[in-house]
């Protein structure tokens, strides 16, 4: 069972469809107790950082516990950005701070948002969630990008005039800037890899 946190942000149906296509049971919920009992937790998200953080507030503690217990967690797009310490998008609002670092506006000179399919450069081929993925295209749509303090947690990048951080990982905590649920078969492969992560 995959548990998707419903915090009134984003396209929950698409991510749910992705898992269902893989014959996986999915629950979309805002019930704190259900989230607390989840084995695999997904935090999707589109929209603005500040609003998202406000809506995540009731679920913060259970998210921290889940990550603390090293159970599989996947943040997608804005769901990656809110894992960071802070964001230029909403300066006076703190992020979940599960990954240290800032979220910054993409530099000028190219079209913003960075919208479309970009080739993924996987940094560590052994990363369980990016297994068998290197060189595939994924769908990105974002105006802000994450800049982690510790480069060791960068799992993948893509080229948009500079190396945009495309995925982060530490233990069983994963996040992607791109949308696996909108990235065709390679995207579904990532969801499959996530399902296959063992719960300790």
């Amino acid at each position, binding site marked *: 069972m995959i548990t998707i946190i419903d915090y009134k942000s984003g396209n929950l149906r*698409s991510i749910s469809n992705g898992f269902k296509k893989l014959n996986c049971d999915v629950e979309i919920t805002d019930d704190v107790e259900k989230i607390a009992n989840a084995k695999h937790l997904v935090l999707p998200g589109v929209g603005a950082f500040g609003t998202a953080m406000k809506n995540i507030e009731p679920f913060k503690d259970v998210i921290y516990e889940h990550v603390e217990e090293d159970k599989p967690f996947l943040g997608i797009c804005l769901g990656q950005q809110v894992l960071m310490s802070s964001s230029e998008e909403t300066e006076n609002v703190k992020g979940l701070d599960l990954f240290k670092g800032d979220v910054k506006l993409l530099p000028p000179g190219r079209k913003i*948002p960075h919208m*479309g399919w970009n080739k993924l450069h996987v940094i560590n081929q052994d990363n369980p969630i990016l297994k068998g993925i290197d060189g595939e295209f994924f769908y990105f749509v974002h105006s802000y990008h994450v800049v982690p303090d510790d480069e060791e947690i960068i799992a993948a990048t893509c080229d948009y005039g500079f190396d945009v951080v495309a995925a982060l990982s530490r233990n069983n905590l994963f996040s992607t800037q791109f949308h696996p649920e909108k990235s065709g078969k390679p995207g579904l492969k990532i969801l499959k890899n996530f399902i296959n992560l063992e719960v300790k």
Partner: protein
Amino acid sequence: MLTKRIIPCLDCDLQVPEGRVVKGVEFKEIKYAGNPVDLATRYYEEGADEIVILDITASYERRGTMVDVIKRLTENVFIPICVGGGIRKVEDYIKMLKAGADKCSTNTAAIKNPELLTEASKVVGSQAVVIGIDAKRRYVDNPSDAPDKNVIETDKGYCWFDCSIYGGREFTGIDAIDWAQKCQDLGAGEVLLTSMDGDGTKEGYDLELTKAINDAVDIPVIASGGVGEPKDILDAFTVSDASAALAASIFHFNEYPIAEVKHYLKENGVNVRL
């Protein structure tokens, strides 16, 4: 590197239960290309980068049908979906996004009420707010004949671009370049740019229009209207530097399969997803 996107467009008549894809927007010689769910699934399998689905009847009472189509379609199609036609309120964006769509395109409603773009972008994010611009050339003898317009020099003489609404049935006199910039400021995240001169002609996109709008905004521009062969798509990317190219009939009747078009583009130096 970011790839150029190929976007099949499904013009849908939603007056039958499952909807049906209509060839072209001219109603003179109606041809049906199949139902939208089947066609979208086929394009997904064939390598489309995104799908635009337009309710050409733009009828408010058919909203439910469109929601159903999107719901069924996104169970098997895992690429971005943009919905257009009849999007008038922020609630319409929310409804379509909840059904599984990723973006909504508006034209008439945004011209009538530009605030809609700002409100929608605050609620669903700019990435989901596409501005549809249907532009027609207005030729002038001299740039000074249209002092308040952005007049450009083309092969066929000086012209500016007039925004049309209600699917090309009415013209506003609004300069398309100014309007595109304004929409960006209001919160739109992408421009779906259709040439009314090119639409249905198969003579190629209006490259001068596409380049002018693309140069004027920082958000991505989708070229639309007039594609007849793969070379036209190549030109949209190499001459106008559009971010994406939209086409309908050349894909519906398999004149040019998507994969074939993409291989052709790649051979000609355009970065595409294969």
